[in-house]
């Protein structure tokens, strides 16, 4: 039955996430936006120890606990992500957890590999996981990867340069985490030859050569990682080494089906932060928002605000649907891309409008609205740009292959 209501225990959990966002993230939000590349270790420690008890939420690994949340794990991850990104999207991305590297292990790894690589996130000191796919010469066209993996005895030697690796520095050099790097076994095989390899932290031959300075999400490190004859054991290749058309790249896509709704939820969290701020601000200024009235009788401010509000809601409903489908075991590539495309664009526009509505106050770094506008933009770029998601939607609805529509 069509239903949009949460059970009481989910509401209670979301309240807790909201308290974290409000009490632990917002107070340091501006500080770590201004002090890019510095790390809020007390926040990391607190989030790490909380995650040991929390179960599903900020980690993409999720939980196998037998509570009600297990069934709708992807949906609830979206809900908690929205709450935490309402707090701060940059800090959210920097929380110690398996991250996209963990998602790749979960999607492509064998049961033995999942246990071997993910166990560390349930014990010891804070750790990060990262995924390295983008290269200086290829972004959206991830099939054009030039980083190579060459068999050498019981090992693979990885060579190449990866960029835009979220939490790359924390995973490779600042914790006992790992980086999942996508490299090709056989360039002539195209997509089929691309495989994910787990590279352990501090592996010789893996070097973080640069950490980017960014428009927003500055609390999160975005690394360039060079692999120079980086030697990894053969059993670090996730899944099967066999080069076949159905393997390899398909696993990247499986990862995106799960992560795109999460990125959409991140966007929605940032958008809601801006919307809530504007709502409180207008209330404070005694500017009413008159719902139910004919649009022809509304002021421009009312129309703008209501438009922001409903755009956010539309994006949220698309996001929930995409995550819910995954939880139900349905194929959701189309819906995940719809959610991501909608949320990325809607929230970019919502936060820009929020700055505009507040005038010079919105533009001032005294309040966080301008930061949210900067933070929002990344959601229309990473994990597939707006245009790549439109391409995926178009191929699906038109029933075209990537050869027919590109």
């Amino acid at each position: 039955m069509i239903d949009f209501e949460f059970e009481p225990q989910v509401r209670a959990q979301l309240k807790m996430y909201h308290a974290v966002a409000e009490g632990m993230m917002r107070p340091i939000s501006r500080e770590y936006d201004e002090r890019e590349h510095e790390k809020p270790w007390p926040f990391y420690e607190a989030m790490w120890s909380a995650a040991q008890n929390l179960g599903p939420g900020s980690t993409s690994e999720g939980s196998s606990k037998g509570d009600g949340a297990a069934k709708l794990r992807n949906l609830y991850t979206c809900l908690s992500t929205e709450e935490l990104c309402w707090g701060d999207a940059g800090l959210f991305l920097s929380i110690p957890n398996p991250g996209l590297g963990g998602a790749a292990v979960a999607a492509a790894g064998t049961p033995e590999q999942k246990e071997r690589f993910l166990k560390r996130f349930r014990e010891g000191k804070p750790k990060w996981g990262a995924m390295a796919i983008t290269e200086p010469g290829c972004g959206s066209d991830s099939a054009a990867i030039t980083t190579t993996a060459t068999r050498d005895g019981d090992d693979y030697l990885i060579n190449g340069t990866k960029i835009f690796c979220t939490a790359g520095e924390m995973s490779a050099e600042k914790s006992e985490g790992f980086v999942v790097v996508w490299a090709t076994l056989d360039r002539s095989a195209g997509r089929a030859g691309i495989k994910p390899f787990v590279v352990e932290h501090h592996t010789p031959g893996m070097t973080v050569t640069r950490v980017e300075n960014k428009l927003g999400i500055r609390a999160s490190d975005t690394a360039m990682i060079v692999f120079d004859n980086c030697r990894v054991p053969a059993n670090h290749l996730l899944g099967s080494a066999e080069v076949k058309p159905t393997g390899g790249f398909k696993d990247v896509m499986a990862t995106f089906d799960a992560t795109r709704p999460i990125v959409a939820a991140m966007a929605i969290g940032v958008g809601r932060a801006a919307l809530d701020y504007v709502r409180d601000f207008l209330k404070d200024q005694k500017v009413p928002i008159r719902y139910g009235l004919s649009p022809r009788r509304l002021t421009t401010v009312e129309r703008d605000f209501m438009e922001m509000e409903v755009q956010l809601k539309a994006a949220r409903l698309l996001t929930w649907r995409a995550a819910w489908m995954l939880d139900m075991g349905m194929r959701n590539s189309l819906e995940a891309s719809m959610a991501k495309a909608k949320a990325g664009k809607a929230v970019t526009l919502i936060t820009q409008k929020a700055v505009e509505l507040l005038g010079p106050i919105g533009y001032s770094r005294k309040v966080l609205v301008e930061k949210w506008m900067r933070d929002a933009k990344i959601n229309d770029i990473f994990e597939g740009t707006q245009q790549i998601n439109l391409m995926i939607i178009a191929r699906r609805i038109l029933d075209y292959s990537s050869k027919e529509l590109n």
Partner: protein
Amino acid sequence: MISFELTEEQRMIRDTVVAFATDEIRPAARLADETGTIPQALIEQAWELGLVRGAIPEEYGGYGDARSAVTGTIVAEELAFGDLSTAIHVLTPRLIAFPVVEFGSSEQRIRILKDFASDKFVAGTSAFLEPRFDFDASALATTAVSDGTDYLLNGAKCCVPLADDSANILIFATTNRDLEFRGVDGFLVPRATPGLTIVGREQNMGLKGLATFEVKLENCRIGKDSRLSGETPFNFTRIVSQGRVAMAAMAVGVARAAYEYAKDYAKERKAFGVPIATKQAIAFMLAEMATEIDATRLLAWEAAACLDRGEDALIESSQARNYAAQSALMVTDNAVQILGGHGYIREHPVEMFLRNARSFAVIEGVATV
């Protein structure tokens, strides 16, 4: 718990209605638009689906189905996918029947609902909209003033579907303007009541198959027992919300009709040796159209789910309707654009979809869930 799954029953209803819309309604749509008449046989066929009679309690000759706004939303979308004029026409008796079921006294139910227990289509309607640019549901200019024994109705209504054929019209009028939505009441007015004049059939840019009328009320005197007053207190907000959800759902249906037509066309039509759908300029338009259609449907469902929980859902339904009015216009306009010159020609239906879609931002109160 969050779920996007239709019930077994809803799936069955959807499949039945979409088949009817595709096989029967759509083929008749163009002629209805050109001639201003919907074939009586089609109307009778639609009546047999029980879309009005279904929700009438068995004691009044209906089938006593549980009424669900979500199900109503699904029905409205699928009918409008066939043709908006026909969809509104066949559901119009709901405009009086459903409020009487929900808010009428037992005497009013007996009097009004027996008409709709028929095996044949029977017209009945409500008068909601008023001919003003700043029309507002919370501030109706039509008034009902009590003189102790009777009510005197005064005002002007427009876009009243099937008014000329209806034995009774449910008229919404303000009894206390300060109370906004809560100051509005519903009055069951026989068509022949002195002071009620049906001015004439309206000529609109779209919805041309649907007969709508302007209705004038000049010292129209009706008895106290005409005011809807059953056990459940009259709730105009809910009626407005139910109408807005229905319009949102119909907007999805019209948008989907245009989108699917344009999509099929783009896969067939060749330019520079390849189907135009293989060009990003066209493919991305279609991708955005598909996304907006889904987003709008979810907004309509969400508002309908609020109604089914017993809430007024004024904010949710207004959001859905306003969003739908924009998205349906965007989608149908894009459909015309994708067909290019051919989209402008009346041989293809997309120009009709565009004209029909324009109504959603302007008209309300002509459908309910």
